[in-house]
């Protein structure tokens, strides 16, 4: 009986340890999925951008300029801003309870009206959990040297 209790306790302890380790990884995977969905939305005339961007979105471009959420979404949906390629490399996520930070190198190719865009930049994204859903609160890029 004692042996069975010991084995049961050991099993519970091991399961708890595995669960404790897997929770952050699961959240990081969830954040990476949200990043993937964001890139897909940019390529797919903005479908899903409203759900991705927090109402409080703060969007700072590589040149230090800021953009309004409504204008960003409208530009993509209207085709004024059209991306042919949105690629991320060296992507990393860190989760701090209800705040997640993603960094990476972002490559964009597309057009804004008649102006072509070809840019490589360092990216910082801040995701926050709002009513159970991770939403993008900050997008900030800076020119990659």
């Amino acid at each position, binding site marked *: 009986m004692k042996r069975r209790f010991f084995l049961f306790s050991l099993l519970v302890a091991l399961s708890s340890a595995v669960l404790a380790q897997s929770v952050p990884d699961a959240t990081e995977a969830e954040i990476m999925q949200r990043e993937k969905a964001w890139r897909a939305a940019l390529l797919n005339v903005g479908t899903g951008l409203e759900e991705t961007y927090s109402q409080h979105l703060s969007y*700072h471009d590589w040149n230090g300029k800021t953009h309004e959420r409504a204008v960003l979404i409208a530009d993509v949906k209207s085709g004024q801003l059209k991306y042919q390629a949105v690629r991320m490399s060296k992507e990393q996520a860190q989760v701090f*309870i209800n705040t997640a930070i993603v960094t990476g190198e972002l490559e964009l190719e597309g057009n804004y009206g008649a102006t072509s865009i070809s840019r490589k930049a360092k990216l910082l994204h801040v995701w926050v959990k709002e009513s159970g859903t991770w939403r993008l609160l900050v997008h900030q890029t800076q020119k990659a040297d």
Partner: protein
Amino acid sequence: MEKEILELEDKWVAALLNCDADFLADLYADGIVYTHTNAAMDTKASYLAKIRSRDLVYHTLERHDIDVRVFGATALATCRWKQTSTSGGVAFEVDARYLHVYARVAESWQMVAHQSTKMV
């Protein structure tokens, strides 16, 4: 909450100017993402080592247009900053906009990201 973040921002500036690595060690989360204006990145350990060794020294630091917003357990501080510093013996002048991200961890605010973007 905004006031608390503003106080931390003021203390952060004082710590940089005074090479107070101990204060920064308390303020920075272990996994802080620290991106400089030239896109170079530091970890908490590598940044603090530069401050402690005086490899990185801030001489002057001015801030304008400070804006703090708190969203539950996440806070953002943005501002325009101009600073002069010496890094690895090379003098720098920076005119940039920085973003600080704070997360509420174990009853206190910790800085989890710093990113500075050069004004073009």
